[in-house]
Structures are given as C-alpha cells and as structure tokens.
C-alpha cells in the first residue's frame, strides 16, 4: 500500500471543534469560529451553531455546504411540524430529522452534527449524528477535527449534574484547548445556552481563556516590550 495514501481505517478529518454538553436544567453548545478552504482561512468569524427552532440548535462540522443544506432542510421540516403539532418540537424529533437526511444521503454527505436543545417533556438533551447517520443520545458530545484532542480531557473532566456556569466554563476551556492544537480550528469560542428560560448566545475572544503550553501573552509591539523592560537585557544577540 502506498504510504502517501490516506490510512484507509481513518474517517475523513473535519475542520472544526464542536461540543454539546447537558447540565442540570439545559444544554450548552460550543464551537470555534474558523472555516477553512485547504490552508486558507475563508472565514475567521463563522457561526457554526445554527438555529433549527426556538428551542433546538445544531452544531455543524465537516463540509460547510453539506451541513448548511442539512440544517436548512431540517429547519424547513421542523417549521411545518411545529405548525401541525401546535407546540414546540421536541429535541428528539429534530435529531431524528437530522438523522434521516444524514443516513439516507450517506454516500453524498460529509458532515458530523450535534443536535442540542430543551423541551418541556425531557429537559435538556444532546444527540450526536456522526458520519453515516447514526443517532446517539449522550450526556455530552464532541465533534469535528479538533475533538480528537479532547477525548482525554472529557474523560477526566466530565461530571454529571454540573451547574450552568460550570458547564459553560468546561465548554469554553475545551474548545480553546482544541484550538491550541488543531490547525483546522481557530478564532474565538461561541456558546449557546438553551434551557427553560430561553436561549443565550455568548462570545469568548482569545483573552477569555488562559494561555496554554508554549503560548505567550499577546503584545501590541516589540517596542512596548523594550520600553517597559529597559532595566533588563533589551535585545539578546
């Protein structure tokens, strides 16, 4: 086998880090903000957490086009379903619609999705719909190329019954750790909190999380460093 050929056992890697976490009362969805075409960052401020209904959102990873079209179709069907049902759709129904499209078009689509939301029957729920169209309910879900760096982190840090603030801090920390190591993830961290009270969108720029290994405090210019530390060695040869 030609070593330059991709390892046939590995699924296609997907640019992005997406996370969905349940907590006591609702869910937190999180994502990075980078969309890349090859090595170029096409959009450094993308919004990968897409609204399906007032109470159900979708985290998108993989092909931007495929994930957008899936979410458009699901939003369309859910809209009709809500009218016919006379009340908000449940998270499970939304997740199943995502699954049907992913599964029935599995040969064409390349998108891994996380469905998260809140309904009055089951509270906060997270469903993973990876490549192939499997549907799997989980207390938390991670996806995208950046998620490979987070399996160990979540194995260690995940706890059941977290509060809203604990859960959001966990999501922000996790996405920022993935951004640190995954070239296909970057920018800032977006979160969406969904519970009985409604939906809250948050935005965490680079200075909202601590520096990780081998990262340095961002500066405006070398000149500032030189002027502030005139007592010690200004420039080292």
């Amino acid at each position, binding site marked *: 086998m030609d070593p330059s050929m991709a390892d046939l*056992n590995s*699924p296609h890697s997907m640019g992005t880090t997406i996370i969905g976490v349940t907590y006591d009362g609702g869910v937190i969805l999180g994502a990075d903000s980078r969309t890349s075409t090859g090595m170029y960052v096409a959009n450094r401020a993308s919004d990968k957490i897409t609204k399906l209904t007032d109470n159900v959102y979708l985290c998108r990873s993989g092909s931007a086009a*495929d994930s957008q079209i899936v979410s458009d179709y699901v939003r369309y069907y859910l809209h009709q379903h809500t009218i016919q049902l006379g009340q908000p759709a449940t998270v499970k129904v939304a997740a199943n619609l995502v699954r*049907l499209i992913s*599964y*029935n078009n599995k*040969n064409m689509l390349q998108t891994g999705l996380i469905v998260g939301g809140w309904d009055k029957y089951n509270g906060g729920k997270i469903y993973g719909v*990876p*490549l192939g169209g499997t549907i799997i309910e989980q207390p938390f879900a991670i996806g995208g190329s950046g998620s490979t760096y987070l*399996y160990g982190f979540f194995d260690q840090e995940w706890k059941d019954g977290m509060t809203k603030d604990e859960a959001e801090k966990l999501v922000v920390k996790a996405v920022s750790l993935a951004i640190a190591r995954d070239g296909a993830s970057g920018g800032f961290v977006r979160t969406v909190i969904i519970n009985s009270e409604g939906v809250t969108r948050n935005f965490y720029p680079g200075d909202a999380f601590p520096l990780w290994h081998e990262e340095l405090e961002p500066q405006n210019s070398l000149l500032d460093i030189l002027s502030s530390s005139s007592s010690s060695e200004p420039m080292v040869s």
Partner: protein
Amino acid sequence: MGTSKNSAYAYQIVGGWDRLASLNTWGYPYVTGTSVIGIKYKDGILMTADMGGSYGSTLRYKSVERMKPVGKHSLLGASGEISDFQEILSYLDELILYDNMWDDGNSLGPKEVHNYLTRVMYNRRNKFNPLWNSLVLGGIKNGQKYLGTVNMIGVHFEDNHVATGFGNHLARPILRDEWHENLSFEEGVKLLEKCMRVLLYRDRSAVNKLQIAKITEEGVTLSKPYALKTFWQFSAFQNPTVGAEGSW
C-alpha cells in the same frame, strides 16, 4: 424526499452534477461495532456483545446497545455500521407491527425473522448497496431453540454457537472445544465471558463494557452493562525482552 434509500434519487436533495460522480453505492462504514457471540444453552439462547461504537481506530462511543429484542421471541445482535443496524431495527419494528395487526394469535418466531433479515441483506447486496452489518439472531419459540447469523453479503446459516467479526477467529475455537448441549445458565455465562475476555485482550476495537442477553420461553432479558477483570500478572510479562534486548 428523505426516505428514499436509493442514492440516485438522493442527488436531487443535495444538488449539483458533481455529486453524481460520487455515486459509489457500495458504501463505507463509519461508526462500527465489533464481535457478537451467541450460544444455545439449556433454557434457550445466550448472546453477548460489548457496548463499543468505534469511529475508525478511535473508540468513540462506549454505551452503544448492540443487542435489541425483536417481538416476543427473538433477540438481534449486530456488528458493523451502527446506523445500518438502527435502520434494520426500524424495518423489524414495522414487520412486528404488521404481524401484530393480524391479531390472530400467531407471532413471528426467530426462524422467520432470520429469514426476513436474510432476504433484506441479500437483496441490498445484489443492488451493490449493502447494509454493512453481521447479524446474530437468536430466539426460542414453543420450546424450539434457534440461533442464526447473516451478514452484509447475504451468507446465512444456523448453528449451536455463532460469532461475528473477530469472534469468528477468537471465540469460535473456544466454543468448538467447550460448548456442549444443555449448558446451565452459569456455565453459559462463564463460557461467553471467557470468549469476551480473550476478545478484550486481542481485539483492538473491543471496549470493557458488555452486556449478556438471555432468551427463554418467558422472554428476553438484557443484563445491565458491566466490565470484566483482566489478568496481567504473568511473570513472563515483567521482563519479556531480557533475553533479547530490543525485541518485544
């Protein structure tokens, strides 16, 4: 729209002539389950599978139930692509529903369900669009025990003990040696656990969280998930390369 299984129709949804080029219908598995083992015992069938859903070489999902009851008399265990297993469960749901709607006191037994699955799997294979699974179907009806298997190319047979995937290579030799008629429940469980432990040592996609299912005339029961102890204290394991440094 979304319910068509034929990907020739599917391009209408996604749009674009470039998608027609990727009309490889033979398919490719993404989230997969590993071995399933089934044996006949005194009161019926015992079946076991771990709860892993692998994503390539990553052990991504660790709480996937790969065995599900079917109707009153049967249990289906699956290895291979989990989304296809979920679709098969949906077909079987419909099959059982229509069977119940006859309301005639008759119900599909394990042999009939196995036959139905065989037709589904073989017909998909003939269309070059298989359901990427190896299935184990076990059950008991009117005292008759039944244990069969069918895979993605439609090969099917029944036996006193069956296994899928790695189980074929690692578990079946053990079963050939140690299985006998009228195993008690305890003997059967110990035998399956022996097989599962070997798979845990030697199958890279095995996870240490498994269920054992029992099917008797009374019905189907699944155990709660549990983990097996493993043994690593062989003295030979301490310094295996002392006689030949650099070897493993």
